[in-house]
């Protein structure tokens, strides 16, 4: 539970009836204790851990050594059983497994995760989208350092209930510190919480004094960063932007996947997209600020 509390310490809390319940319980035989749901299944992942979706019950089942989880989307309940003397399993319980279940519940409620860092200026957001290693996290920190508001460095939620314009909701999870981000922001090293050898260093965004959080913003630009010697922004068509975003669709419930894809399509149509070649992340704010002038959230 400490892991969960630490990860989500920057999220707003709310009162009232919860939308979902997540139980994390100690168990000596997690996989055996969490039986497979009835009906057919679809294997979504099977490298380090197994991830199966059961379309008949709308249930996600995740298993790894020392941990098993069942996410029942219709009842919005998650059960994670973990061998509490297994440090790696405990970490998975508060991190990857928790994330996968949370993402599934969010999708079922029309909040679609997009693998992107996001910062905003006066309520208008730039999403840095693309695969790991492209420098999204460092770019978002560089913009935040120069006064932009911060919504997340890895995943944000997009809501596109047409005919309304899409909006982006923050997902201020712990910021994972890469070697690159430590190089540009050495002060974060002293703030970070180190864990076991295999765990990246991370820092909750609300522990960073110069980081201002925003809870939501209107997307105004989609930016796909790449390393490049000369800072350059090149326009990208909405078709190309959509194609870059497609891998964000998670293949569980088909109707939810269609709505997820619809949301990505709405986002790609609503805002201009660019490739950003850059080497110095601190050049990003000056290069991107002009994109936010004028119309926001529309081509």
């Amino acid at each position, binding site marked *: 539970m400490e892991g969960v509390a630490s990860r989500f310490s920057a999220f707003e809390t709310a009162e009232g009836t919860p939308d979902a319940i997540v139980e994390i319980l100690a168990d000596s035989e997690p996989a055996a204790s969490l039986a497979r749901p009835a009906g057919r299944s679809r294997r*979504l*992942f099977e490298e*380090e851990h197994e991830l199966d979706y059961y379309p008949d019950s709308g249930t996600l089942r995740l298993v790894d050594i020392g941990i098993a989880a069942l996410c029942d989307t219709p009842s919005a309940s998650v059960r994670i059983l973990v061998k509490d003397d297994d440090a790696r399993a405990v970490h*998975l319980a508060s991190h990857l497994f928790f994330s996968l279940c949370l993402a*599934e519940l969010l999708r079922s409620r029309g909040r679609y995760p997009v693998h992107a860092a996001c910062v905003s200026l006066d309520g208008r957001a730039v999403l840095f989208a693309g695969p790991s290693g492209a420098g999204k996290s460092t770019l978002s920190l560089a913009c935040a350092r120069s006064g932009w508001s911060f919504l997340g460095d890895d*995943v944000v939620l997009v809501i596109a209930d047409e005919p309304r314009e899409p909006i982006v909701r923050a997902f201020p999870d712990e910021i994972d*510190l890469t070697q690159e981000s430590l190089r540009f922001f050495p002060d974060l090293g002293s703030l970070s919480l180190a864990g076991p050898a295999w765990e990246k260093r991370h820092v909750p965004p609300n522990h960073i004094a110069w980081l201002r959080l925003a809870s939501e913003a209107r997307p105004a630009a989609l930016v796909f960063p790449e390393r490049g010697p000369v800072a350059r922004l090149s326009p990208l068509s909405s078709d190309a932007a959509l194609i870059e975003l*497609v*891998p964000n669709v998670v293949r569980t419930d088909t109707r939810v996947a269609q709505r997820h894809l*619809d949301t990505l399509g709405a986002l790609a149509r609503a805002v201009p997209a660019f490739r950003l070649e850059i080497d110095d992340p601190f050049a990003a704010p000056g290069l991107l600020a002009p994109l936010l002038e004028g119309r926001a959230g529309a081509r």
Partner: protein
Amino acid sequence: MLWETVRGARNTPEETQVGEHEPNEPTGAEEKAPTGTGSELSRRDFMRGAAAAGVVIGADDYVKPTLKMLGVSRLAAAASTPPPPPPPQESPKKGCTPGFWGNNSSDGQGGGVPWWDTSSDPEWAANGGSGTNPFSQSTLFTPFFTSHPLLVGVTMWVAVNGGGGSHPAEKAARQLVAAYLNASFGAYTFTRAQLSSMWTQAVSGGNSALNALSTLLDATNTGCDGQ
């Protein structure tokens, strides 16, 4: 109805117009679509349906249909942070100590020293090793493994013997070299890919992470046959 099917597709708001000119009439006798479903389909119905589907059609717009595969989507957004490496196998295989592969403080050189003192050392396989030795004693630690300032210019031989110091990086590197040799030799708790990855992450994690890695590998490099 064909055109109703076309109309069922999703619209792109800015792509609803039909081409400005009517498509050319086919030469020869007037043709109508044959009635596969028992109902007549007029060109106008088709155009209306296509327009509703956001498909722009004009007389010269027949373009060969193509299907382009773009990629395979995996668990993108939700699994954007890589998981930690898998834990030890159910029956973890312990490995030889750094002293076996290097200098053994009490008995001089360890028993495994002659098995990797050259590249593709024949004594490796002759003593039961799988494949060939992954590196030799003169191989440089960096760039075989991710660079750490204290391990630059250091050979595997120096590293497995502790590098002459007690810095967390040197202690971890000592265990790492032994572990990598163990993983290459036969069944071991971790794979070589896992070990490389664990080292890389420990380097970025700093001294506490390096100490943790050293402790972890020390627990699995506790001794083998021949020690």
